[in-house]
Structures are given as structure tokens and as C-alpha cells.
């Protein structure tokens, strides 16, 4: 029942996923074989040490290059004029706001079903960058709306459901922080957080379909599976910007996972010292 207790193996070193799962006998299912390789925190840390800076540096270079290209080279749009350049910040931020919660939902599912040792940490690590990109999307969207629609905000389906996403992030961050504090008492907070992460995922398809289901000032989807109504001149820098920001997102999640793991290791060591 108390999986987080297993974050501190008696040996003080993580040998395998079993170290983490000790203390929660009979719960969850065995990890599928491909997930075993990622279930050992020591192995994960070895990988994160070289992958994180690679993701961050390549992501910063790609996104900065795409945004500069969008600012300096891309021509103004026939209808939106110069404001079309906001696309290169707003759209990647919107994708990552939803991708962040999708990450949380998948991590929550993996945690609840397979009790993967890193799943709760991955979910928590994705929450802050997800919330930040959601906030960036809302602010830049509001700035874009003023010259395009003549208003900063309208309570339509897309904008309102995206604002709800930001509040869901705040709730998840508060809940996971409380679960972390209750870790020693083993109150099952991680499970409640995971359930919240799964239930909150219902908002993702609502955001996605909102411009189809309800009348909205917001334009309908420009990019759907395999098709795009955006001209190639605007599209390619947008895809590169989205890739760059996604790499940054991945690097930040890895950095925050390392931070959370280091906190857990330090707390575990302090507890053992106090008990000795």
C-alpha cells in the first residue's frame, strides 16, 4: 500500500525495480518486459545525465532559430498581417500544455496498473512545465486575440476549456506536493494524485474538439492527422519550433525527475540516520 516507502531500499542503493516495489506486496501487475529496463532509477539517472543536456541544447537552438526565422523571414499573412508570427510561440505552447497533461495521464495509468517506480516521479516532473506552457499559451493567445478579434478574452469553448486545464495543473501540483509530504506516513497520496491525473485527462479531448462542437471566435483545427490548411511557408518553421519546444520540454522533465529523485534519496538517507 505504501509504494513510496520502497523508494528507500534498505541497502541504500537501488539495484533493481524490486527495491522500489518491496513494501507493496500483492498490489499492481508485473511490469511488461520492455518497461523493466526503465524501472531501475540508477539506470535512469545514468541515461538522464547525458540525455538531458542534449535535449535542452538542441531544443533551445531549434526553437530559437524557428522563432527568429518566423520573426525575420516569414512574410506577413494576408488576413492576420504581422501578428501571424505569434504562431511560433502560441501553437507549440498549446501543444505542450496538452502534451504535459497527456504525460501525466499516461504516467498515472502506469503507476496505478503496474506500479512502475518512476511513473509518479515522471508525472510530477511534467506538471510544472505543462502548467508553464499552458500559461504561455493563454497569455500569448490573449495578446494575439486583441488585434485579431478586437478583444483580449471571450468565454468560448476553446479558451475556457484551456483555462480549466491551467487550474487542473494547479490542483495536480498542490496534490502531488501534499502526497510527497505525506510520503513517510504512507497515506496513499500518490494513488489519489494518479487518479486525479487520469480523471483530468477528460479535458484533453474537450479542448481538442471544442472548436468543432461549439461556435467560437477561435479558428477550427488547421493541422489534423496528415493534413494541414497552413501554407508551407508558415508550416515548416512552425513544425521546427514545435519540435524545438518539445525537446526543451523533455529536457526540463528529465531535470525535474533528477531533482525529485535526489530529494527522495536525501530524505531516505536522513530518515535512516535518524532511526539509527
Amino acid at each position: 500500500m505504501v509504494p513510496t516507502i520502497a523508494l528507500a531500499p534498505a541497502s541504500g542503493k537501488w539495484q533493481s525495480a524490486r527495491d522500489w516495489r518491496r513494501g507493496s506486496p500483492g498490489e499492481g501487475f508485473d511490469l511488461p518486459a520492455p518497461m523493466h529496463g526503465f524501472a531501475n532509477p540508477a539506470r535512469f539517472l545514468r541515461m538522464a545525465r547525458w540525455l538531458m543536456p542534449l535535449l535542452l541544447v538542441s531544443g533551445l537552438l531549434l526553437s530559437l532559430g524557428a522563432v527568429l526565422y518566423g520573426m525575420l523571414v516569414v512574410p506577413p499573412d494576408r488576413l492576420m498581417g504581422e501578428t501571424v508570427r505569434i504562431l511560433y510561440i502560441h501553437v507549440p505552447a498549446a501543444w505542450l500544455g496538452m502534451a504535459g497533461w497527456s504525460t501525466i495521464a499516461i504516467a498515472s495509468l502506469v503507476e496505478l496498473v503496474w506500479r512502475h517506480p518512476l511513473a509518479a516521479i515522471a508525472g510530477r516532473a511534467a506538471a510544472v512545465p505543462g502548467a508553464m506552457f499552458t500559461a504561455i499559451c493563454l497569455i500569448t493567445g490573449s495578446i494575439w486575440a486583441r488585434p485579431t478579434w478586437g478583444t483580449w478574452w471571450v468565454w468560448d469553448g476553446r479558451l475556457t476549456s484551456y483555462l480549466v486545464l491551467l487550474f487542473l495543473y494547479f490542483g495536480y501540483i498542490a496534490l502531488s506536493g501534499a502526497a510527497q509530504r505525506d510520503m513517510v506516513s504512507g497515506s496513499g497520496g500518490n494513488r489519489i494524485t494518479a487518479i486525479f491525473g487520469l480523471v483530468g485527462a477528460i479535458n484533453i479531448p474537450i479542448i481538442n474538439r471544442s472548436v468543432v462542437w461549439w461556435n467560437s471566435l477561435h479558428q477550427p483545427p488547421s493541422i489534423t492527422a496528415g493534413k494541414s490548411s497552413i501554407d508551407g511557408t508558415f508550416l515548416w518553421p512552425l513544425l521546427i519550433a514545435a519540435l524545438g519546444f518539445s525537446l526543451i520540454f523533455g529536457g526540463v522533465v528529465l531535470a525535474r525527475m533528477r531533482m525529485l529523485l535526489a530529494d527522495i534519496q536525501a530524505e531516505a538517507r536522513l530518515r535512516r540516520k535518524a532511526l539509527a
Partner: protein
Amino acid sequence: MREGLQQWDYVLAAVAIGVIGTLLLVGWSLVGMARAERRRDKVRGK
């Protein structure tokens, strides 16, 4: 012409918020990670 200038004000504000927000997020995460790993190593007596 004036309309074009006004549009650039919005563009610059949006890009500044996006870039500064992203850099703050990256910096905050790296500093937090370095601080947590330093604390862990200190507790371990390394």
C-alpha cells in the same frame, strides 16, 4: 503603416513572454536539480 507598427508591438510582447517564460522554466529546473543533487551528496557525506 501605423497599423503595422501596432501589430509588431503585440508580436514582440508575445515572443518576449514566450522566450522569457521558457528560459525561466529551464533555469529554474536546472538550479533546482543542481541544488537537490548537492544536498543529496552532502547528506551522503560525499
